[in-house]
């Protein structure tokens, strides 16, 4: 078609290739070389398997690996189970808009802030223990390891508090594409119970639509660092945390086994995804056999209710955690087992003012920069598809998900090596670049569906009225898509604010953000100050989501079809 469209597509391809794919590939390559002994900076230039032997011999290595597998795979499977049961129970009773409103706070809050809040709630001196104290007759916190427990149970719970809302969101959006009510009626008329129809008929249709997001959850859970530092076992920690520690060890020779660990982390994720994939194949075969037998006797009802109760407990814990951040940041005297502080104060905010103002400034700058860059690139990509009258190819779709499936620890060390050589490591530009690798995919995924859902004939009508491609973009598409565009931007802000490892590695420890400060403070120092940072960390994405809701509502207040129906 037009030259213009071709130029735009070429630009987008170049930016994606050089800006997103190249850094990841180079980062993996550098990490991979170091894993096999090549690290010219240390004078190592020979291929060897020694880093792997060193890795296996590091204290706690086997435990770390086991913890990673248990918490990562366990939290994903449990979350999937609970979310499925919850959907089956409440789907008919909740409108998409209501469920989106309920889930948004849980999706917006960064993992680290949620972890800090959960630590406040679960700790032996936390809210749960304070509620139980009068009944159990405690006058001091019990001597139990409820956070940082050796089994990783607190981490498992923390991951689930974040994963279940995300899975609910993708499931509900998948369900909106399926005629659930009709199929449920048809299934029940054939004598199947509600839960059985759900398992035999609805879920097999939902799964292909949520498969990729589930992989992303699995990859994330296996390689999360910030939440694992705050809630997980500390000695030995999960593999990703251990690898992060080895990378930042004072002894540079540790870089070699650390790189081997980083590559192992990527292999673990790949194997887990492969396992899930083969499990899917097995379930398909077993499911078909089960379906063809036509049994109607089983009732899944108790399971459904148990799952729903589980989700309710998780969401309640998450809500308490968010509240506890604010309460601790305003607490002054709060002795055990009082439910609320005896005295309140703005003192924590005042004392830490210099620190949090600087961190807040950095965080907002990073969020604005990565959000704007990612949104611009996403719009350019989608507009390029439009101008070529093309739909997306499968490899392009896979490209978008790549940074979300690769563990961050797998390539961030190598990426920083590249940045060091380019002389940009430690600068704000390097951090913006590294964060954008993860912000862009989420923005792109959030914007793609609403963009494509726009009636093509609306654009044909504009063209037939003489509007060229740029006028169609500025005067028709962008205003109509204002709400999804701002929502995508808010998601971008939330992802940027939550980034820990990219900021730590490519910022060379010099760029302090709310997240890096909250993670550092969470290990032991003053809860009030930690509460200040975590509150701000949670507040920033909330503000972005609020703006994404309020701005279109205000601008389009007299446009019915853009306020009501478009809300979902």
């Amino acid at each position: 078609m037009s030259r213009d469209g071709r130029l735009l597509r070429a630009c987008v391809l170049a930016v994606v290739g050089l800006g997103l794919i190249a850094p990841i590939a180079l980062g993996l390559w550098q990490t991979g070389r170091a894993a096999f002994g090549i690290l010219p900076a240390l004078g190592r230039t020979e291929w060897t398997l020694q880093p792997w032997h060193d890795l296996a011999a590091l204290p706690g290595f086997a435990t770390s690996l086991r913890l990673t597998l248990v918490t990562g795979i366990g939290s994903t499977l449990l979350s999937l189970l609970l979310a499925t049961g919850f959907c089956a129970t409440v789907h008919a009773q909740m409108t998409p808009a209501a469920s989106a409103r309920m889930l948004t706070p849980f999706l917006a809050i960064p993992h680290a802030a949620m972890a800090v809040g959960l630590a406040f709630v679960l700790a032996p001196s936390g809210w749960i223990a304070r509620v139980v104290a009068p009944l159990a007759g405690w006058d001091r916190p019990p001597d139990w390891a409820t956070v940082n427990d050796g089994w990783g149970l607190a981490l498992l719970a923390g991951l689930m508090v974040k994963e279940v809302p995300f899975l609910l969101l993708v499931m509900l959006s998948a369900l909106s594409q399926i005629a659930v009510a009709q199929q449920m009626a048809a299934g029940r008329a054939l004598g199947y119970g509600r839960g059985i129809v759900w398992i035999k008929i609805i879920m097999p249709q939902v799964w292909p639509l949520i498969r990729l997001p589930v992989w992303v959850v699995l990859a994330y859970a296996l390689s999360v660092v910030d939440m694992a530092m705050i809630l997980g076992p500390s000695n030995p920690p999960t593999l990703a945390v251990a690898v992060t520690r080895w990378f930042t060890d004072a002894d540079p020779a540790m870089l070699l086994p650390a790189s081997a660990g980083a590559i192992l982390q990527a292999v673990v994720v790949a194997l887990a995804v492969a396992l899930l994939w083969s499990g899917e194949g097995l379930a398909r075969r077993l499911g078909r056999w089960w379906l063809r037998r036509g049994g109607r006797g089983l009732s899944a009802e108790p399971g459904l209710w148990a799952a729903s109760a589980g989700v309710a407990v998780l969401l309640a814990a998450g809500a308490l955690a968010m509240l506890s951040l604010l309460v601790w940041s305003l607490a002054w005297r709060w002795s055990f087992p009082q439910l609320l502080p005896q005295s309140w104060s703005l003192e924590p905010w005042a004392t830490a003012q210099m620190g949090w103002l600087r961190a807040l400034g950095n965080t907002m700058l990073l969020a604005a920069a990565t959000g704007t860059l990612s949104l611009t690139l996403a719009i350019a990509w989608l507009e390029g598809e439009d101008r070529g009258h093309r739909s997306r190819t499968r490899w392009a779709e896979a490209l978008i998900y790549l940074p979300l499936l690769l563990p961050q620890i797998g390539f961030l060390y190598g990426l920083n090596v590249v940045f060091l050589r380019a002389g940009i490591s430690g600068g704000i530009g390097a951090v913006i670049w590294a964060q954008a690798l993860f912000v862009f995919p989420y923005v792109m995924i959030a914007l793609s569906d609403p963009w494509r859902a726009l009636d093509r004939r609306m654009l044909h009508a504009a063209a037939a009225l003489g509007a060229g491609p740029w006028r169609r973009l500025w005067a028709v598409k962008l205003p109509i898509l204002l709400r999804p565009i701002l929502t995508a931007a808010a998601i971008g802000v939330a992802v940027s604010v939550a980034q820990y490892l990219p900021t730590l590695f490519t910022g060379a420890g010099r760029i302090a953000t709310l997240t890096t400060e909250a993670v550092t403070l969470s290990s032991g120092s003053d809860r009030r100050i930690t509460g200040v940072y975590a509150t701000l960390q949670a507040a920033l994405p909330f503000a972005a989501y609020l703006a994404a809701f309020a701005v279109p509502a205000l601008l389009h207040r007299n446009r019915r079809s853009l306020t009501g129906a478009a809300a979902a």
Partner: protein
Amino acid sequence: MSLDLHALCIHSATGTALFAPLTLHIPAGAVVTVMGPSGVGKSTLLDAIGGHLAHGFRLSGQVLLSGHDVSRLPAEARRIGLVFQEALLFPHLSVGDNLAFGLPAALRGRKLRRAAVEAALDQAGLAGMHDRDPATLSGGQRARAALMRTLLAEPAALLLDEPFANLDAGLKAEIRRFTLDHVKARAIPALMVTHDPDDAAAAGGAVVALG
């Protein structure tokens, strides 16, 4: 003004032709009707003439407007207007701004443009609705506003894609008369796709069976 299709043929991505090469002459003010079963490619034919073909389709033959081949031009340069069964008014603009969107940029001056829009609203029985939200109009009002938007762009030809299919029986006759009267009064060649033989009869022009 006239619209001519010369040996027009559309090939899908796999290379098969959707229908036999089509040659048509539509003189000014005439409305030619294309009929045929669903899925035979009637809407794709209109997409091809208007310049909206999706990637993968290939066009052979010519689309001539008053003798000039426009088939290599982008849609916005063809001056071929569209009327759909849904009005497809831009939801973010007021009714008046929807009409102003179609007004040629050559018409200068805020007052002159506003006057042109008001006159068109008046003709469509929508006087005083300049600032209304299109979502608050009735179906008939929406259809008339959409037609006025299309006509204000001064199209050299019109494509009507099942333009009356969504309207109930009483409204259908009214909008059909309104549309066809305007097309004939302005002497615009028009091509209409429809399932309804009554539409073809009302149009009064030649009927082409596709497929």
